[in-house]
């Protein structure tokens, strides 16, 4: 209980503090400390949940079960390493005159507000608050995407704001419909939006209304997950914002959106007793996978290219959650973890690469290994990891995804395989050229902070070689929970 207060309170207090505190170096340190404290709190809470199953906090307003506590821990971890990474990175941006002290202050405050939004959404027991927290996280990141105030970044942030704004209002419409169905059963009031109560009474909810509600929730939250055809905001937002923002967008925000969708799916599944929600998710997943794979080949900007890879992986997770068997859920959660770890590490590396070459255009990035071996190898290893090469964790999770698909919907395997191969081909079309060869004259040495990258890669490697017992037990619990096994 008290740890929970720490988890939610620290980012909020830190956000306010950082909004007032103008000292750039101290702010970077406060940012790290705040994230580290939430990480500690999240691990403590995770242990509690592992022991006790579901815990509810503060009059049932918040709850934690195996599914969300795992995401909270992941969020806190990536937020911490991002804070460590962003210190020297943002200082470099400031020294180069891309931002001033005022914007840096905005950056730090909004980062913590974003983390607060993430925790709020992942632990809230109220569907309206989950919706609200996604909106908080979105608004915070909109301001971050436009941080550089270049024409490109403002256009990207506007697109992000408008498309996600509309998307998220559709999700609110879906939530209102859901409330329309649930207030018949649970009465008028907060109870009818409380997830745990809804889940217990889900079989009494009207299936027609719930199906219609899910269509809106799917499109609404799907926009935030980055599913095609609503994905257009994602690549520009990733490309134009500062690198730490791209890392948390890919690694964390998309997860929260998918999490909200899966929570709603769990309700709809019980209510309708059919596989409608799962089918929708599988359809959107497969479509997005193909769209992302093909789009990846056409990119010129390195961050855009990797953001299409994020769409591809989110599509894969959406598809896998759509299958809905315990194996599939296990695979999807493992994939969520490995993707968050590897993709944020890749964005860290890409950020350094872009700083040392002075550009994000892939055709002008050459000879990274010669120039700064740490960055070059980081990029190459990261690409192998995200492409799903063994022994990294992405291989394990993709292998599991394939087995789950083969078990329930064998025909989808061909589409999955095609999509993945196209995407991998895209990655290797660009990355080796950037890693090998001779570095251009104007390349400069940057103070690269590769520690977070190596931590992420080692964890991804560990997950690939052998998943620690407590972690797999945890995934098993969550997988059974999502599949409707209860606790």
């Amino acid at each position, binding site marked *: 209980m008290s740890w929970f207060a720490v988890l939610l309170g620290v980012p909020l207090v830190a956000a306010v503090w950082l909004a007032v505190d103008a000292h750039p170096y101290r702010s970077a340190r406060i940012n790290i400390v705040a994230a580290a404290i939430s990480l500690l709190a999240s691990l403590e809470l995770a242990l509690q949940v592992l022991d006790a199953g579901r815990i509810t906090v503060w009059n049932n307003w918040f709850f934690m079960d195996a599914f969300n506590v795992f995401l909270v821990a992941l969020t806190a971890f990536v937020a911490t390493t991002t804070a460590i990474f962003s210190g020297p990175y943002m200082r470099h941006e400031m020294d180069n005159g891309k931002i001033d002290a005022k914007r840096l202050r905005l950056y730090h405050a909004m980062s913590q507000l974003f983390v607060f939004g993430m925790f709020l959404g992942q632990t809230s027991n109220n569907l309206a608050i989950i919706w609200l927290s996604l909106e908080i996280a979105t608004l915070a990141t909109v301001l971050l995407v436009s941080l550089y105030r270049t024409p490109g970044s403002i256009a990207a942030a506007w697109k992000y704001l408008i498309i996600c704004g*509309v998307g998220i209002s559709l999700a609110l419409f879906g939530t209102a419909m859901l409330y329309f169905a649930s207030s018949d059963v649970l009465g008028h009031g907060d109870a009818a939006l409380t997830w745990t109560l809804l889940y217990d009474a889900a079989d009494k909810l009207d299936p027609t209304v719930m199906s*219609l509600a899910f269509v809106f929730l799917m499109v609404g939250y799907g926009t935030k997950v980055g599913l095609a055809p609503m994905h257009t905001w994602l690549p520009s937002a990733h490309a134009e914002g500062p690198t730490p923002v791209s890392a948390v967008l890919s690694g964390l925000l998309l997860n929260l959106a998918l999490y909200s969708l899966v929570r709603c799916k769990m309700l709809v599944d019980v209510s309708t007793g059919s596989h409608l929600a799962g089918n929708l998710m599988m359809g959107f997943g497969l479509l997005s996978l193909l769209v992302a794979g093909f789009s990846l080949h056409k990119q010129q900007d390195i961050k855009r290219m990797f953001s299409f890879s994020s769409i591809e992986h989110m599509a894969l997770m959406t598809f896998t959650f759509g299958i809905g068997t315990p194996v599939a859920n296990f695979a999807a959660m493992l994939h969520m973890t490995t993707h968050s770890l590897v993709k944020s590490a890749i964005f860290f590396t890409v950020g350094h690469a872009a700083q040392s070459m002075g550009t994000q255009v892939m055709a002008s990035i050459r000879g990274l290994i010669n120039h700064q071996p740490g960055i070059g190898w980081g990029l190459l290893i990261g690409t192998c990891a995200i492409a799903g090469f063994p022994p990294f964790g992405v291989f394990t999770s993709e292998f599991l995804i394939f087995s789950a698909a083969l078990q329930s919907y064998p025909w989808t395997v061909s589409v999955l395989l095609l999509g993945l191969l196209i995407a991998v081909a895209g990655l290797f079309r660009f990355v080796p050229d950037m890693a090998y060869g001779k570095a251009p004259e104007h390349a400069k040495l940057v103070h690269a902070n590769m520690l977070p990258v190596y931590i992420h890669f080692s964890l991804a490697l560990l997950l690939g070689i052998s998943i620690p017992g407590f972690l797999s037990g945890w995934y098993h619990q969550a997988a059974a929970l999502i599949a409707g096994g209860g606790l």
Partner: protein
Amino acid sequence: MSTELLQQIITMGAALMLLISFALLSQKRMLSLLHWFALQGIVLAAVTALVGYTSDNTELYVSAAITLLLKGMLLPWVLWKIIRQMHVHREVEPLVNMPVTMLIAAALVVFSYQVTLPIEHLSHLITRNTIAVAMANVLLGMLMMITRKKAITQVVGFLAIENSLFFAGVGATYGMPLVAELGVAFDVLIASVVFGLFFYQIRDTFESLDLNKMEK
């Protein structure tokens, strides 16, 4: 509590909301667009208060008051200030011409009724038209956002969608719980501040609020 009266209020509210959505779509001048937008906020607040009165739900009074202040007065006023300051009050410039827009709009309304047909009759609440109209309004708001190229018109479209969602909540369920309502109101407020910030950033960077210029 009079069910008959409640039903009439909600039905009338639904009709007015739909009418205003069409009016918003057909406006050619920025100022009249804002007038209609303000009217939408006021109608929304009135319907909310009346539903609150007839269904004895005091929470709805709070919602109504917030709606009136925020959507009926504050937001239109702020937008009006912005267009005056930026000298963009002249024309709306639709991408698709009016008659076609209106035909698409009518088709969207029919579509909404078609989609919501299976659920209307099973409600214990009186929601004959509410959900269909709310959905139609959301779609019309989207249509407005798609067919206009000024940043401000897009924002008005966005806020009109929020209004329709709010109406869906009030009409179909006698209002979402207060937490949800307050959250949404807060969100609209913050979003508007962010929108306002962006107007200035966009204008300073592109020297216009015309979104076509941003596509480069």
